[in-house]
């Protein structure tokens, strides 16, 4: 920890570590200095010249993103000199900017718009025609480039150089003829390409997937989690429910990364970014069903389903014994779901050797050293902490089985002929149509739930939209069946389940459901067992 020094910022005496950038120290005390090129994750090249401030003793205004804090320094970010310098800088940025806000997707979340209102409001002295460059240039799988709108802040160039290390983007030419482009023969096709859209302060880089679908100001934002892999990145879920026609009825419009210093910092991968479609995909189950006498699925109301399923399961177990029943769980289940499942399992008396939680083959994928993890399920660590053995795979199951409860994954073909099968999950898979009982579960964006990522950090997802149709959270299904079989499961909300879990499970001791934004470390699973 660097030495703390005192300095004066806008007439306020503040303390900051020596050597910290003035712009960062100002942000910490709630003073925003306008800036384009500076990004805490991408360095401070000082090319946009917008973050100028007045430093006493310096002959000219200084850039707050390249000035370090020192003892006794006097800085003003709002003096007439600083304000005039900021407005003049902004005028240069807008000299060649096309002002096509009506057709620009960034409008509403654009830093040019915000800063013009906040720091500009000048009458332009530019009388020359604007320079025209290429519009609508397809530069990659996910990103569309508009060279006219670009203000050459080079954030995206630095992203491809420093974070994704794929070096596709560059600024070519000089002066007002300089353009942002991909290097000849290259395309912006790296697995993290979507992030350049987020860091672009203007509308030069737009998301092809989101392009022209919803205006930014129609979106509701909910802090949540991406459950696409074991990293469990912090995200914001942007939903469009008030004007459904824009997204053809899809409620979730996009995922955006949310800063979390411990997990994903400012980024998410493209795989996670575009995984939002599963929440409104045609495979979503809206209601639960069971196979009728003629072999066709019959829809059943949730309360009815739990009661009938409970009595059927109870009858089977008393006739054939619990040793022939298996639980094929998935790492997509949250800690609350797994806690409820654990109670149901112990009530039924299913032996531990009949519980499978290892990732299914379709739940494994690519891994790199930036964010992505090979296990495409979020909560294997949480499962371990709750006492599940995540190493036991399907082929180590002890035969013969008479029934199985499969959650959110494919089941082997051999399960097809079993007399009693339950499939539970949000999105139908091939096995769903084979199961005797199908229970519709909520999607991650529809429930409050906690997940522990591969580092053991417990974070909470929030409900961005209501559960689709008659679907309900997985813990509610386990709990309802448990109640139907005479067990005790009094919880009506995820917070109540969490409270019971933190009391009962050593790994969760002392944690509250209201976790901080960056999550909290779970007591290490091994430690808890000890």
């Amino acid at each position, binding site marked *: 920890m660097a030495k703390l020094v005192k300095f004066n910022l806008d007439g306020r005496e503040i303390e900051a570590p020596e050597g910290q950038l003035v712009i960062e120290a100002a942000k910490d005390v709630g003073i925003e200095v306008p800036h384009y090129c500076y990004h805490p994750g991408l360095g401070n090249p000082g090319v946009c010249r917008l973050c100028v401030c007045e430093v006493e003793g310096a002959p000219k205004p200084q850039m707050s993103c390249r000035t370090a804090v020192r003892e006794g320094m006097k800085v003003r970010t709002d003096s007439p000199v600083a304000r005039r310098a900021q407005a003049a800088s902004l005028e240069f940025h807008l000299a060649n900017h096309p002002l*096509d*806000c*009506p*057709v620009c997707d960034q*409008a509403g979340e654009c830093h040019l718009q915000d800063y013009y209102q906040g720091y500009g409001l000048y009458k332009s002295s530019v009388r020359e025609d604007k320079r025209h460059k290429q*519009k*609508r240039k397809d530069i990659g799988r996910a990103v569309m480039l508009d060279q006219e709108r670009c203000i050459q802040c080079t954030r995206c160039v630095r992203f491809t150089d420093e974070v994704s290390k794929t070096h596709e983007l560059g600024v070519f030419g000089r002066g007002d003829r300089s353009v942002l482009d991909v290097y000849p023969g290259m395309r912006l096709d790296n697995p993290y390409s979507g992030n350049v859209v987020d860091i672009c302060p203007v509308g030069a880089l737009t998301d092809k997937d989101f*392009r*022209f*679908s919803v*205006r930014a*100001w*129609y979106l509701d934002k909910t802090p949540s989690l991406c459950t696409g892999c074991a990293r469990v990145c912090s995200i914001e879920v942007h939903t469009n429910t008030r*004007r459904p*026609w*824009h997204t053809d009825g899809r409620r979730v419009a996009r995922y955006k990364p949310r800063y979390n210093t411990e997990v994903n910092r400012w980024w998410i991968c493209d795989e996670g970014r575009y995984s939002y479609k599963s929440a409104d995909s045609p495979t979503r189950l809206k209601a639960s069903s069971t196979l009728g006498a003629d072999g066709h699925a019959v829809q059943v109301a949730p309360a009815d389903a739990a009661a009938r399923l409970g009595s059927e399961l109870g009858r089977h177990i008393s006739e054939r014994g619990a040793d022939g029943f298996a639980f094929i769980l998935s790492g997509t289940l949250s800690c609350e779901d797994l806690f409820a499942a654990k109670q149901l399992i112990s009530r039924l008396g299913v032996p531990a050797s009949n519980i499978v939680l290892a990732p299914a083959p379709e739940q494994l994928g690519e891994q790199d050293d930036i964010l992505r993890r090979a296990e495409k399920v979020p909560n294997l660590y949480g499962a371990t902490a709750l006492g599940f053995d995540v190493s036991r795979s399907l082929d180590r199951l002890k035969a013969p089985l008479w029934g199985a409860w499969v959650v959110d994954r494919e089941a082997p073909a051999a399960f097809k002929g079993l007399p009693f099968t339950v499939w539970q999950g949000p999105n139908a898979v091939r096995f769903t149509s084979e199961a005797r009982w199908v229970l519709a579960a909520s999607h991650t964006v529809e429930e409050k739930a906690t997940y522990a990522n591969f580092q053991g950090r417990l974070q909470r997802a929030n409900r961005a939209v209501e559960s689709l149709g008659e679907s309900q959270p997985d813990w509610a299904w386990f709990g309802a069946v448990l109640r139907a079989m005479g067990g005790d499961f009094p919880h009506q909300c995820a917070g109540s389940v969490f409270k019971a879990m933190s009391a009962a499970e050593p790994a969760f001791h002392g944690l509250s459901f209201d976790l901080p934004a960056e999550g909290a470390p779970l007591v290490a699973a091994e430690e808890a067992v000890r």
Partner: protein
Amino acid sequence: MNPVLDKHRVKTVVRPEMRFQEQVYLIEVWKGLLITSRHFFVNLWRHCMKALGQDAAAASVTTQYPEDPQVTAHRSRTRHRLLKREDGTPRCVACMLCETVCPAKCIYIKAEESPDVMIEKRAKTFKIDLGMCVFCGYCVEACPEDAIRMDTQYIQFPGSTRADLIWDMPELMGDRPKIPSLTPSKDPLSRP
């Protein structure tokens, strides 16, 4: 005490006590009937005067629409029109400003990619539900492209269902006349 109410000045309204005359009830009923009767005879007198060609006594005389044309203010705002560029394409770029500003939420736009790279974005569908519209004219003021305007005095957009009042893009642009369905649907309140 309620902390929210404490912040505001609360004025307590005291209801007046009923006097003897009001408690008796019949007297007040007669007074009410007298008022109603007065209105009846005054209106009857004015209707008679109008029938005899004396229009001077302006009052709540029923306009015999559509036999008599409705007189609207000179600058009244009525149905919307979508304007076109010189080459015949719609001016609208689907910026959604009218949809955003609309207090009645009666504008439904869907955007798409325009084949012309300089225009970039255009409306795929543009619908206005005139049954919901409050004719405030905010959409006209919000439009950055002068793509939407409103007629004056044109008030003939009849319909026998609610769906008849939803005007689509060709109808708003004048490419296709809006023809209401002649047979009322079984459920006239339904929307498409």
